[in-house]
């Protein structure tokens, strides 16, 4: 059984949607964060691919491209100890309450 990222030749007749979406600001910034961390030696492409591949198949299928990049960024930052999960949970709640108010 193939892993969900290993897509080549999967049986599908699904037409290829040529519709383009304009990237949101957060997507641009996630893209940029990966690049910046890469230049600082804190993240490698192969590590990022491995992190994306470690998502459970349902998440991989359900997430958009930059959602997967975000999930991978989180895995790598926690794993490398750049941030802790307590810090992230705390900051996430803070950010959530900011946007709700």
């Amino acid at each position, binding site marked *: 059984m*193939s892993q969900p990222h290993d897509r*080549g*030749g999967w049986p599908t007749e699904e037409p290829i949607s040529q519709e383009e979406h304009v990237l949101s600001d957060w997507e641009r910034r996630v893209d940029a964060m990966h690049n910046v961390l890469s230049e600082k030696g804190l993240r*490698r492409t*192969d*590590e990022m*691919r*491995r992190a994306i*591949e470690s998502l459970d198949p349902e998440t991989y299928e359900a997430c958009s491209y930059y959602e997967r990049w975000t999930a991978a960024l989180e895995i790598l930052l926690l794993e490398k100890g750049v941030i802790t999960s307590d810090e992230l949970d705390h900051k996430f709640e803070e950010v959530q309450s900011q946007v709700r108010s």
Partner: protein
Amino acid sequence: MTQYSGQPDDSTVKYQPGDTVAVRVDNPGGHFRTPRYIQGQTGRVHKLCGIFPNPESLAYGGDGQPAQPLYRVEFSQSQVWSEYAGPSSDKIYVDIYQHWLEPATAVA
């Protein structure tokens, strides 16, 4: 936690353009860059792309050594896919690291 799929002993270039090679069938469990659909297939070395750190090591924080020769390997589409709809002259090229390749004899 370095994981290697094969046993890449060194970085010596073992294949030349025109050589017939078979792609190993393996599921090393970690990160690797050899798609399923091409595993077990026999193709022809088109060219050596260079020698690159092994991604199976880089993905886990390793140093990627020994670096692996990377080849662009040419396969016949109608051999790779039994249901291939196009002409038998169509090809597919996949970049494959040396430790995923084995010497083989040409398929008629």
